[in-house]
């Protein structure tokens, strides 16, 4: 495996085979003298002698570090860019925001959740900072609880850990009490909780509680804190601020409206880090922003893109002087604050071999006027596929199947942007879709042609809309559905969401629709043709969508006719696993692997979700994104067949070719439809379209391929 990242190093210096005499490794190198040595050697170009004196070890040790680093795979083309990138980002953050220190965890290792990796890194940072006699204030949160869980320090004396805010309901695991207790336990420290609620009913209650001797004593301890560790919460809908019920939602809206960008220890700040005043201020029991800023060591542990504005606000406001975050967030913060030098540094590093600076500045295409591509394509397409479809009225953006719609039959309308040919237009004809609405390249049609399609497809039994789950398509089709219903045509909608790489399974509804459209359209078309009711057609189409799993891989991006340039870059030796049909990101950007390894990665992902038993039947679609030839598709199919056979899953039908493309993108996708009896019947139901023809049962064998 070329792509495997090195295992996280267990145990720090001073334990086991730890290095001699090193106790001052700069934080950004983690606890890893090998990385430090390698950085000095490979990046800073120091000699082994210079490194020896910088690290305070012998030359022979440096020599063995460098040799070991290679053996252990630390110096390894495939993983080092991620590590070096995170070091570069840490240095840049430290410089740009004048931090005392900064630790950035690489993003390459996606096997562990971010919170866990941040927790481990935060624990590492704290363990280097906490000294005997310290008072450490601890704010609440998921990430900080994770810090507590990863922290392990035994040999300190007289350390006090104090809760930075009042308490909350215990309906979640990371309450202020539990977070503080976890940290205190990890370092065997005295634990001081604030025994009052974090938010109380009134300002009077706040003042009364703070006048209580017990609470005053707890606050005195808090005032003595010389270090604090805290998380940073955004105000985004999924942040802990909302889910924990820490604040009621009404005052939150107030702070949002006044420009709050983030929350630290229960206090709101705007994008510049200034306190945002609001109704909770006098009712919140806990450390104030002013107190926080007065503490000597202020360690913030936080990561995730959605926290970028909040982190930036906290950094701008000077609330943080030690930052622990991840590489992507760190780079995001720098970019958001206008630091562009980083991009140069990172790409310079990642460039393995200088690309023969593409001597051509554009992609060659068959074009007349680039602005007319869609119209000209449709002219040709309508002429070519005349036996199957015809324009509705004068516009070529709404096409109806010949012999498709008929009285009493549910109409099937599909559609979307162009550039995916033969999707969507190739699936219009008897037994499949009744009408298709087409937009510009990669862009949804407006409601008007969709309504025309609905009217043309309607046979009095209602119309089913089936299209990919994209923001633009959803808005236009929804508006069209409203307009069609005003005209008395009942509309049901099924969004295709087969791209399992686009969102985790918990957010299944948020996934996008890609080549698996093919199966979903086929099933829907058959259901409509068989005279099922609108409700039945919707239900079975939904089932087909739920049982269709697609993962795509892109090797090169596509180019638009207007620009004739690649829309984005995939590095010379890279591929994007899980890429969507407009170039949306997937699971990971990786080195290109062998065809079998790529299929294995895809099938592993699919098997994780598809609960198929031995003996089950599936349909397989191996689809080109445009530029990948059939030869390579068959190589992929070969491995798909092997993997399914190994699980004793039977391939009932297969299709290999161009079924849902992305202009001239190089890449392919694999879609699997997990069949049941009903779906098998619908899949074999006859249809006649430009791209897919299935004959009546007697000729069935030939069609199955």
């Amino acid at each position, binding site marked *: 495996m070329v792509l495997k990242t090195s295992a996280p190093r267990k145990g720090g210096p001073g334990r086991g085979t730890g290095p001699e005499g090193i106790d001052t490794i700069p934080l950004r190198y983690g606890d890893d003298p090998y990385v430090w040595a390698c950085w000095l050697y490979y990046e800073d170009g120091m000699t082994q002698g210079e490194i020896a004196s910088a690290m305070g070890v012998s030359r022979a040790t440096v020599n063995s570090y460098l040799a070991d680093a290679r053996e252990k795979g630390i110096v390894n083309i495939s993983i080092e860019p991620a590590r070096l990138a995170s070091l570069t980002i840490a240095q840049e953050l430290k410089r740009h925001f004048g931090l005392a220190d900064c630790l950035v965890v690489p993003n390459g290792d996606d096997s562990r959740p971010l919170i866990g990796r941040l927790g481990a890194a935060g624990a590492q940072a704290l363990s280097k900072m906490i000294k005997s006699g310290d008072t450490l204030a601890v704010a609440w949160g998921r990430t900080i609880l994770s810090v507590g869980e990863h922290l392990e320090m035994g040999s300190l004396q007289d350390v006090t850990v104090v809760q930075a805010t009042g308490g909350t309901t215990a309906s979640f695991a990371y309450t202020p009490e539990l977070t503080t207790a976890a940290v205190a336990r990890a370092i065997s420290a005295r634990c001081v909780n604030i025994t009052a609620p974090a938010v109380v009913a009134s300002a009077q209650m706040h003042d009364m509680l703070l006048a209580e001797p017990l609470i005053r004593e707890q606050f005195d301890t808090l005032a003595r804190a010389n270090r604090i560790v805290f998380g940073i919460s955004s105000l985004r809908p999924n942040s802990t601020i909302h889910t924990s019920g820490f604040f009621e939602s009404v005052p939150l809206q107030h702070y949002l409206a006044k420009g709050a960008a983030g929350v630290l220890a229960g206090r709101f700040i705007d994008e510049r880090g200034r306190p945002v005043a609001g109704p909770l201020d006098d009712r919140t029991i806990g450390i104030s922003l002013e107190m926080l800023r007065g503490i000597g060591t202020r360690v913030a542990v936080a990561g995730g893109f959605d926290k*970028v504005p909040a982190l930036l606000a906290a950094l701008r406001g000077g609330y943080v002087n030690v930052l622990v975050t991840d590489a992507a967030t760190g780079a995001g913060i720098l970019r*958001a604050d206008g630091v562009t030098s980083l991009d140069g540094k990172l790409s310079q590093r990642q460039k393995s071999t200088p690309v023969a600076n593409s001597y051509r500045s554009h992609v060659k295409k068959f074009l007349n006027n680039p602005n007319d591509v869609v119209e000209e394509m449709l002219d040709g397409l309508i002429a070519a596929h005349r036996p199957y479809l015809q324009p509705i009225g004068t516009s070529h953006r709404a096409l109806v199947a010949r012999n498709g719609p008929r009285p009493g039959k549910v109409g099937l309308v599909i559609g979307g942007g162009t550039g995916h040919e033969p999707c969507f237009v190739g699936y219009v004809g008897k037994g499949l879709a009744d009408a298709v609405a087409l937009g510009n390249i990669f*862009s949804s049609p*407006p409601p008007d042609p969709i309504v025309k399609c609905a009217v043309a497809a309607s046979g009095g039994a209602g119309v089913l809309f089936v299209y990919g789950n994209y923001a633009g398509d959803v808005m*236009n089709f929804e508006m069209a559905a409203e307009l069609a219903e005003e005209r008395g045509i009942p509309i049901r909608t099924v969004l295709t969401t087969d791209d399992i790489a686009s969102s985790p399974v918990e957010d299944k509804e948020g996934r996008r629709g890609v080549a698996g459209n093919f199966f979903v359209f086929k099933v829907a078309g058959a259901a409509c043709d068989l005279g099922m009711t609108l409700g039945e057609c919707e239900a079975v189409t939904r089932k087909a969508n739920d049982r269709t799993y697609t993962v795509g891989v892109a090797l090169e991006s596509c180019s638009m006719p207007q*620009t004739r340039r690649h829309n984005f870059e995939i590095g010379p030796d890279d591929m994007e696993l899980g890429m969507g049909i407009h170039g949306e990101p997937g699971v990971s950007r990786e080195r290109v692997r062998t065809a079998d390894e790529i299929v294995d990665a895809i099938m592993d992902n699919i098997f994780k979700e598809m609960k198929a038993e031995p003996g089950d039947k599936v349909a397989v679609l191996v689809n080109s994104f445009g530029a990948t030839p059939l030869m390579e598709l068959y190589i992929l199919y070969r491995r798909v067949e092997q993997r399914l056979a190994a699980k004793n899953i039977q391939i009932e039908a297969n299709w290999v070719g161009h079924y849902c493309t992305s202009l001239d993108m190089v890449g392919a996708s694999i879609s699997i439809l997990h069949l049941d009896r009903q779906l098998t019947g619908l899949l074999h139901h006859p249809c006649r379209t430009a791209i897919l023809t299935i004959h009546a049962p007697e000729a069935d064998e030939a069609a199955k391929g």
Partner: protein
Amino acid sequence: MSETAARVLARMFERMSRVIETEKDRLSELDGAIGDGDHGITMSIGFKAVTAALAALDLESASPSDVMSTAASGFLDAVGASTGPLYATGFRRAGQALAGCDQLDLAACRDMLSAISEGIRDRGKAQRGDKTMLDVWLPAAEAAATAVAAHRQKPEFWKAVEAAAENGAAATATMVATKGRAARLRERSLGHTDPGAASAAMLIKAMAATL
């Protein structure tokens, strides 16, 4: 007698169209950084269609509400994509909000701004912080509401609205896109102003200059 409210609104759309036309290359450039580079063209097509549709309307007898709904359908039929439904819904809602209203006082302007921003929000199901045009329309509408509540005069009202819009557009540079095609860039969208937010601020500026 000054010109009718419908005429003023039509003039507002003409001004919007002119601003978009002048700035369309800049908008496309912004979009090129994080999208597919056609926002300027899309907006220009949309607003040309709006002015064309309004030219066909009899502004002597039309109500402000008619102007808004004509603008909505004009925009939508020409554009599609996601900008189309968003502005079309916004303008249509503004039309509903202005029903029965025949003069554009500050309360009417406030209602119009809030109807547009609510329409865009409902249609796009985005929220503040998603790095979209909503990050301009929502604060602008709120500034308008605050200004009316504080009995501000016209110049202060529009100054506050414009400032909120411009701050909103600038703030999108610090946000990560979660909606639309820019979402594909994730953190790479940071540092770039959202083109939809930038054009929204231009539209609000044009409103301020006309109303």
